[in-house]
Structure formats: C-alpha cells, structure tokens
C-alpha cells in the first residue's frame, strides 16, 4: 500500500523503497533492528536520534505519546512543544567505552528545514567513526537531510588538525557559510568558523557547534 514519508510527508507508491521526494527509506525497511551502523545519525533516521530538547521523551521505554485528550484541552505553561516525530530510539554508544572522548565534540543543529519538526534537533558528528561526514539528500550519506533542494551528495565535513572544514560537492543549489553579514558560497573547501551557520541549498540552515 502507498506509504507516507515520515520525513517530508510525501505520499509514495507501494513499490518505492525510498521516498521519491527526499530519499528517506520506507519505514518498514528502516527499523532500528536492521541497522548495523554504529552512529545514530546513519541511515535515514536523523529526525529521531537526538531529542535533547525534549527531556520528557528521553526515556527509551517511553512510547511516542500522541495526545488525544477530549477537547478543547488546556495545558499550563511552561511546556516544551511536543514533536509528533519525537519517537525515542535507542542511541548506540560506540566510542565512549574504549577510549576517552577527544576534546570538543561537534554537533549539527538544525535551524531551518522544510521539515519543521526537525528544527532544533541536535545530531552529534562522530569523527572517530567517520573521518569524513557526508551530507546530502540520499540515504547513502552519513547525515541524510530531507530537503529536495539539497543534492543527493551535497557536502562533506572533515577535520584537519584542530580545524573543521566543509567542502561543497558541486551541489546544484550550493553550500554557504555565514560570515557575519551574508552567506558566502563555498567553492571547494572552506575552513569553518566557530559556531558556523551553514546554508545547504535554499531552505536548510544548520549550525555546527563544538561543545
């Protein structure tokens, strides 16, 4: 039967294994049990990996809560907005057992994307596992971003010494780094400033933070 993409909402035909719009894998095919990758952001599940903004959903045992209380329903402040996609998934911890974390852990935080529920989500960048982290629309990337204006393989992030670089892979709509005034197009590779604000294509903005 036709299925609805959990990333971008597109209705897809039955025989499509990947979303025809954003490339996200069909839900049945992307159950965590089938995943062999060791970092949470791999394979089309970036939307649900890190819910650090949502302390109430942090317990892995908690099922996703759809509030369907009889209406109209009132809630007192303060409260965090609930995300429909806030399904907690197990977060494989691969690197911390054997070796101490290197100083400074990088995250990508979504600032603006066509999938509004993705905004504010933080995804760790584990350079110990992937020396080069690829960003793009198709599921082969380390970080898949559901936005049809992002190229299938859009950009790379990697470290050289203590520096973090971004490289545009000749993407159709470009990669841009905010310089304090405007978004500067990335030609080839570019050194990222601290807390870089990066635009991928026309509609996705991410922040790359080091903590």
């Amino acid at each position, binding site marked *: 039967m036709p299925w609805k993409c959990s990333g971008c909402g597109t209705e897809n035909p039955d025989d499509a294994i990947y979303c025809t719009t954003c490339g996200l894998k069909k839900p049945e095919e992307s159950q965590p049990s089938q995943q062999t990758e060791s970092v949470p952001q791999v394979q089309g599940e970036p939307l649900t990996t890190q819910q650090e903004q949502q302390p109430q959903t942090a317990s892995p045992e908690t099922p996703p809560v759809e509030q369907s209380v009889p209406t*109209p329903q009132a809630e007192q402040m303060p409260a965090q*907005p609930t995300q429909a996609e806030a399904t907690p998934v197990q977060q494989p911890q691969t690197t911390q057992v054997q070796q101490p974390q290197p100083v400074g852990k990088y995250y990508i935080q979504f600032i603006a994307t066509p999938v509004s529920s993705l905004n504010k989500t933080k995804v760790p960048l584990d350079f110990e596992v992937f020396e080069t982290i690829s960003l793009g629309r198709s599921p082969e990337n380390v970080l898949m971003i559901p936005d049809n204006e992002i190229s299938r393989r859009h950009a790379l992030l990697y470290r050289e010494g203590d520096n973090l670089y971004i490289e545009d892979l000749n993407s159709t709509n470009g990669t841009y780094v905010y310089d304090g005034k405007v978004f500067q197009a990335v030609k080839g590779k570019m050194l990222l400033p601290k807390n870089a604000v990066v635009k991928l294509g026309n509609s*996705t903005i991410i922040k790359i933070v080091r903590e």
Partner: protein
Amino acid sequence: MSPWPQERREALLDVVAKARDKFSSMRPLLRLGERKRVVVVGDTHGAINVTKYVLEKYWEYDSIVFLGDYVDREPYGLENLELILPKFLENPEKIIVLRGNHESPMTNEYYGFKSEVREKMGAEYYEEFASMFSVMPYVAIVNGYFCVHGGIARGLESVDQVEGLKKPDLLPEDQIAMELLWNDPREELDGFIPNVRGEGTFFYGKDVTLRFLEQNSLKGIIRGHEVADGFRFEMDNRVITVFSSRYHKMRAGILRIEDENLTQEYLDERFLYEGDGL
C-alpha cells in the same frame, strides 16, 4: 468554488470598506495597556471553525488579539473575514486585528486568496481587500507582550518606531514593517541572519531579542507565522509562537492570558469537525 450571490458579495464589500476606514484611523502600534483576560489567536488561514469558536467563546474577554494571516492556503479566506471583520467593527477596542504577511498582494497572488476572490466575487474586487490590508496595524502591546505576526526587525530599537510606520503600505515596502511581518525567532542564533524565506527576511537571534525586550520593558513576544503543533516556546519562554490554523494537519492552538497566567488551549481535529455544533 462557486460564485457568491450578489447580496452576500455586497454585504462583505460593505464591511471591508468600513473596516478599511476604521483601520486607517488606527495607529500602526496599538497600546492596549493592562487587560485582565486576553486570548491570542495565531495564523488561521481560513480556519473558520477556529475563528468562530474563539469569537463565540471568548467574546466576554477584554480582548481577542488576532495575529494576522486570515487568508491564503485554505479556500475560506473570505468566510474568515466575514466572521472577523463585523466583530471588529462592532467592538474595535476588544477585537484586535493585526496584519500578517498574507495580508498582502505579495502572497495573495501565489497562495490562493486572489483566486478565491476571483472565483467567489470577481477579480475586480481584489483591490478592495488589498487596500484594506494596507492600512491594518502591525503591533499590539498588551500586558507587556509585544504581539506581532513575525517578530522584531533590524533597526527596530524602540517600539515607538512602529508608531511612525506609514500607512497605507501595500506590500509593505518599509523594511521594518516588512520584517515585523516576515521574520522568525531562532534562539540558537545571535544577531539577525538572512532567513530562508527570501530577500529581506531575517531570523532574529536570542541576544537581539532579549536586548529589545529589555530596552522596551517588555515581558515577551507573542507571534504566529511559523507552523507549530499549536505552540512553540523559546528564549526562556520570552518568545511564544501561536499557530491556530488547520492546513498543516497539526493541532490549532490559542493562548489565553488571564491575569499573570498564560494557558495553552488546543483545538483538535475532533472538536473542530464534530464538536460543539458550531
């Protein structure tokens, strides 16, 4: 969409003309002072069930503040205005009707309202609506909350600057007016950073927002403009997004301010389509 009978068309045009005159006489910034019970409604985009519910249930409140975006996206913009405008004219002190970025030919051309007017009333009448939109107020300050469709703008240091914005302004052309209607908050950012919505629109970061609130002795900003499951709170609850429409298939929310308390009220699917005999 079928054409409206002449009587209905004329009735709405009459209301629109009167509302235009009333808006025209109002300042771009409405200082409402302290009011005991207020309800704030975000983008409705033709969600007439939401509008009807709020106007009936909260008519006894001191104020109902609509944050703009009455038309476009759903084909009931005219019906929405048919509900809101007569109530506004009946009590313009109570019913606060602010402008959104969809009260503009810039958006109506692409998001459906212009076609809706053409099909239900006739293309020649769109101008009447655009002309009314061009004189609507931008901001209301109530109980220390800066109520606006999008948010703060570059170069806006003092709320007094909003008082000075010119009306009519069709698109609007004024950069501050434009940004009040189009900008979005992002607590992860600092300063003003170009928005993905296009040329002339910005994200406003935490530092500039808190500074603006401090300088103007404001408690917070209540705004619409961005899709949310009813609400979104950020910057230590100083910026509240209220989204009251239905087109995004999430819940509609309205925010009640009662004395010092803020209450989120969700209007869900069942209520809107089966409930309450509205």
